[in-house]
């Protein structure tokens, strides 16, 4: 326990997320809140994806399926069954973690490119299934009755409420990422990433560890999905299972630093800010996708370890405070 209390890296990580997250609450500005909502959402998605991608070394293109399924379960419970957003989000998380545990047990047998392709297939299969499933609105999706927000003191308060919940979830997901990284279980995952067969020989129960990591990575995306679509007031398959968002999550991890705790936080914030800037600047507005592509290519070729990884390699002293 003392080990954690004395670790400056833990404090720095918590502080960064907390200070940035509380900022909109102080300024009470709705625009800052909306910007921050997206950043925190991506921090959560990237941090949890990093457990599978960065620590365990499995390239998951279908991470967004947890977000989408969680969003659908939570939204259905809120909009159709009249649940409060908190129990709905928890139920969504539980359902999606179960789904991830079962799915992980099956597809984590695959390695390398086969695993990556299978995750794309799972996301597309689930999305096209939802498109055809009329009970959840099929291709048009579902809408929430505006009066639902009255339970939270009107739409304005509901949005702030969703934001505060998201801030808590983001903190929790970054802490989860930190504790996995510093635990013995996390070391096992890193060993699997470096050489799975050697890890097995050393007595790491790789299949079990991988499945647990996969399930852990599903907890928070499901909650974020519920919060996001609760805030939006509607949900449709195209928004919930967008493959592109999965890949953006990977880009953020690469940008910040693959396999580090701070990396996804830095990467998600930088990428979101940069995109906001590109979208509003007249010069790059039409070219923002191409620009992001060039940036990604440059990072992979020249700084493959990302910002945080580069700092850690370049200045070894930084390692104490930058996990």
């Amino acid at each position, binding site marked *: 326990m003392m080990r954690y209390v004395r670790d400056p890296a833990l404090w720095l990580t918590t502080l960064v997320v907390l200070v940035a997250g509380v900022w909109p609450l102080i300024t009470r500005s709705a625009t800052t809140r909306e910007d921050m909502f997206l950043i925190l959402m991506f921090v959560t998605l990237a941090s949890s994806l990093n457990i599978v*991608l960065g620590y365990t*070394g499995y*390239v998951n293109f279908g991470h967004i399926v947890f977000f989408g399924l969680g969003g659908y379960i939570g939204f259905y419970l809120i909009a159709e069954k009249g649940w409060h957003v908190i129990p709905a989000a928890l139920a969504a998380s539980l359902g999606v973690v179960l789904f991830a545990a079962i799915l992980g047990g*099956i*597809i984590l*047998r*695959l390695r*390398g*490119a*086969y695993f*990556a*392709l*299978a995750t*794309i*297939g*799972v996301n*597309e*299969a689930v999305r*096209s*299934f939802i*498109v*055809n499933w009329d009970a959840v609105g099929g*291709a048009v999706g579902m809408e929430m009755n505006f009066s639902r927000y009255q339970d939270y003191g009107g739409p304005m308060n509901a949005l702030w409420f969703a934001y505060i919940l998201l801030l808590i979830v983001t903190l929790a997901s970054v802490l989860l990422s930190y504790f996995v990284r510093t635990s013995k279980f996390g070391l096992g995952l890193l060993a699997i990433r470096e050489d799975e067969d050697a890890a097995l020989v050393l007595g790491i129960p790789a299949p079990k560890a991988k499945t647990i990591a996969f399930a852990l990575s599903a907890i928070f995306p499901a909650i974020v999905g519920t919060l996001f679509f609760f805030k939006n007031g509607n949900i449709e398959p195209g928004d919930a299972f967008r493959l592109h968002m999965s*890949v953006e999550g*990977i*880009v953020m991890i*690469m940008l910040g630093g*693959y396999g580090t705790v701070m990396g996804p936080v830095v990467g998600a914030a930088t990428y979101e800010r940069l995109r906001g800037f590109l979208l509003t600047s007249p010069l790059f507005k*039409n*070219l*923002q*996708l*191409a*620009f*992001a*592509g*060039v940036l*990604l*290519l440059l990072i*992979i*070729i020249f700084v*493959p370890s990302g910002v945080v990884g580069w700092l850690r390699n370049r200045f070894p002293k930084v390692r104490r405070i930058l996990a």
Partner: protein
Amino acid sequence: MDVLLASLVDGLLIGFVYGLAAMGLTLIFGVMDVVNLSHGALIALGMFGVYLLFTGLGLNPYLGLLIVLVLGIILGMILYAIAIHPLLDGPHLSTLLSTFAVSMIIIGVGTMLFTSTPRNIDINLGSMVLGPVRLQGTRVVAALVAILVATGLYIFMYRTHVGKSIRAVANNRDAAELVGIPSVRILAFSFGLGTMLAMVSGGLIATLFPFSILSGGTYELKSFVICVLGGLGNPTGALLGGLILGLIEGLIPVFMPVGWTPVIEFTLFVLIILIRPSGILGAR
């Protein structure tokens, strides 16, 4: 019965084109172990190549295809030098991401130049009646061109020196290097071939259906399904996989709402990757 037969034949014809697209993906994977995530963007680029030559210069789409073929090989070799070669020895993730970055660049620039409004190539070759089945001329020609390109590729791979070198490098790069094969040049050329196949099939698809710069994604996913059906890295399997996918797409609408097609395709995809990752042709 006639409806069934007609959609079967239709499916088969399109299946050849799908198979050709998937051959590009599977060739690159087989030779250098890279899953090319810019495949869909390259297909879209091929569509626009033929489209622009047709609307801009009034060139016949099938002649335009020849130019696209040459451009494809050159573009592929350039892409290899920029996005693949520096990363070939790194982890899987780096080439997945670098090819995805290429796709973002192509689609980003493409969206700016062409917007995402759907286009189509206005070409009508009449139709052919074959017993109870009426075939659209464009589909028959597209299938024939696909067969021609696939056969050409097969002869090239088995009968020419460069083709044999490609197979040698795919088999074992170090051993190929030892017997004097310039493996870097061969890898670059293979990537060029894969790109060419994607672009040519894109050009063929453009003569059949309306398309936009974003259409590539759908065909990229189809190519993944086909590659896994036929076994990743196996071009003959890819052609067969394309036919199977074409048949599925032809048959499903006869029995159930057409919306279920992707559900069945992707479920099949995940099942095959789990049960027989080497594809239906491959050894267990």
